[in-house]
């Protein structure tokens, strides 16, 4: 056992040494903080004419749902498959009930968690809606919605979300993403093309289809992670 640990230490040290020696004095790897964006593809994303054409103030959002929107579709599919795998491993087809908790929530905890639920949900929706203007977007906002659901699950041992509604929401938003992509193909020239007017940079209604796509991503991520939470906190009903 001790020898195995020593071997593992040796392997990791060798790997670290290999990585650092490869990066050290490599002309392709720039020094920290000393990057010229004109050499990179990002220089074009930050071009002012390009920004006015796209209409999104948050350039990270412009990349995630615009330039790499197809990538994001694949990534949402990965998340869908992982939530499907979790549901399969827990045998979600049979009737489920909540895991027995070794506490019973009192009145204050139950009411307080309901109040906080509204606040967290509102912040999550705000982050999703302003994804093309401020930091954040569909992925962090969706996770916030799921965390609000998790709060309800933890604070009340009888609570059970309507998981069927989550599944419908998830499938609908996933399909709508593809439908909007196909609309770009029909109305314009290629899949996921921005066929709506870009508007003024900084307005809530700007950047064409980006806010719509990010709302769909937020709903999909939120419902998927809520489904995973429900799977973890329930078990098969023995009866």
């Amino acid at each position, binding site marked *: 056992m001790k020898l195995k640990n020593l071997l593992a230490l040796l392997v990791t040290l060798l790997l670290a040494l290999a990585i*650092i020696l490869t990066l050290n004095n490599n002309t392709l790897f720039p020094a920290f903080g000393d990057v010229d964006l004109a050499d990179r593809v990002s220089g074009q994303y930050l071009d002012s004419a390009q920004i006015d054409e796209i209409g999104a103030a948050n350039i990270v959002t412009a990349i995630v749902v615009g330039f790499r929107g197809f990538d994001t579709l694949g990534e949402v599919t990965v998340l869908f498959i992982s939530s499907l795998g979790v549901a399969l491993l827990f045998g979600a087809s049979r009737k489920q009930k909540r895991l027995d908790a070794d506490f019973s929530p009192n009145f204050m905890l139950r009411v307080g968690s309901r109040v906080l639920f509204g606040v967290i949900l509102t912040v999550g929706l705000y982050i999703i809606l302003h994804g093309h203007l401020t930091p954040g977007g569909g992925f962090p906002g969706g996770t916030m919605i799921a965390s609000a659901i998790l709060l309800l699950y933890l604070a009340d041992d009888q609570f059970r979300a309507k998981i069927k509604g989550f599944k419908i929401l998830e499938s609908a938003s996933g399909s709508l993403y593809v439908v909007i992509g196909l609309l770009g193909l029909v109305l314009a020239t290629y899949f996921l093309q921005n066929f709506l007017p870009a508007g003024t940079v900084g307005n809530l209604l700007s950047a064409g289809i980006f806010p719509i796509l990010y709302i769909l991503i937020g709903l999909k991520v939120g419902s998927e992670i809520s489904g995973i939470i429900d799977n973890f906190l329930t078990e098969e009903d023995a009866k």
Partner: protein
Amino acid sequence: MIQYAAIVIFVLGLYGILVNRNVIKMIVSLNVMEIGLNLFIISIGFIYDGIAPIITSTEAAGALIYVDPLPQALVLTAIVIGVGTTALALAVAKSIHRVHGTFDLNEVGDLQ
């Protein structure tokens, strides 16, 4: 130089995966590896005096220095995929615990 700290976090996670036999600790090590790599990818796009790549003023874009937005977009997606894989791994761990009554792979026996 500071980028090598991210590499150190990455190999620490790898060491944790190789040494630990507890499934939960292995999943935690996997997450440590992921954090190290995410930090490294983010650090590639850093520029001194650069600001977050969000247009907040009407100044011409050429007047301001923005950090590279592409690594940030890639890490944003990598984090979400990390959540998905962690959830799947934890589900497998829960199944192992349900069947064998332990998280320790040494005690599981027939899995080795």
